């Protein structure tokens, strides 16, 4: 899982793949129709896998179509959601630079405070140490 921008990019690529997959499915599994009363669907004696078209039953085909269409819509909605949560849409470059500078200053202050606290801790540890050492059992 990458950052949001990469997620968005991946989602768009997946949408493209879904386009191809949908067309491929329809192309491969549609039913065969006659154009006039005199025509008839020629029987093929090859294995189903080898035929150019491998018709699925009408209800299965319909259900698959619906599913593919729903998946496309879902993916598109995912993309829109990802767009709307892209980080920093309401920050301009100047805002960001100011923000970074402020944070840098605050970090310096906080780091100094931390160092000070560490020093204080060492002192107090030393004091505690002497006190503990000075306690003698009777």
């Amino acid at each position, binding site marked *: 899982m990458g950052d949001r921008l990469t997620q968005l990019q991946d989602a768009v690529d997946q949408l493209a793949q879904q386009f191809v997959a949908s067309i491929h499915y329809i192309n491969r599994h549609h039913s065969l129709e006659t154009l006039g009363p005199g025509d008839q669907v020629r029987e093929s004696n090859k294995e189903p896998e080898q035929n150019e078209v491998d018709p699925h039953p009408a209800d299965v085909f319909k259900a698959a179509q619906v599913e593919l269409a729903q998946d496309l819509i879902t993916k598109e909605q995912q993309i829109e959601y990802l767009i709307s949560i892209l*980080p920093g849409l309401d920050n301009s470059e100047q805002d960001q630079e100011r923000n970074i500078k402020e944070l840098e200053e605050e970090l310096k202050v906080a780091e100094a405070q931390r160092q000070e606290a560490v020093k204080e801790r060492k002192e107090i540890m030393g004091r505690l140490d002497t006190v503990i050492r000075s306690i003698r059992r009777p």
Partner: protein
Amino acid sequence: MADDDDAQNQISSTFPPPPPFWKDFTPDNVARIKDLKQEQVERDAADHDPASIRLAGLPHNLRFLQPPLPPDAGAWRVFGNHYTLNQTLPKLDGSGIQKLFPEPEERDQDGKHFDRATILKRLAKSLLLNFLELTGILSINPAEAEAKITDIRDLFLNFHHLINEYRPHQARESLISMMQSQLDRTRAETNAIRDVKEKVERLLEGLGSLKMDHESLGGATEGGKRREDLDGELEALLADEFP
């Protein structure tokens, strides 16, 4: 002779050996350049960082210890590849792809990026619509689908272009959030240390008052028994503070 061998190795081995000047990085030389820089700082009487100073006229064996200046032209070569300081995103115009969004100058007023989000959403919807049209065309006359496929391709490329344009912005945004979390972490650590310190101080105060009692009582003749009581009290206090 040794130089010839080095040159020979450099040509024949798959992975080139490190540049020959690595031999100059001896502890002595490193210490010397540090001293020289320190001297230079003192001579200038300016308070800049010794690390950033540049020395002129270094002796031969120290010359490589000073990193080279950044390239003036903003371009350099590493392992036969060219690199530039400013990596520009290739423009869509030149690559024969129809551009489907306005120039950066015309959108995103006040530097905000709401327009970009709107354009992206519009492109996403266009993609779906174009796909619907494509399936329609394919079902009627597949030979005419070519133009529609080009449209969809252009939409995708435009989409990617807009995404990649946004990357520097996102990088800065990530930096901000990382700095923020580091700040929070540092502050939390400071507070935790302070808390412990206060606890220990309270404990020491408690001990101090105990000790005073102890001394005042210790002088009394029946101190022996009392002492044990006090030590027990001390232990209880310690256990209380440091469970």
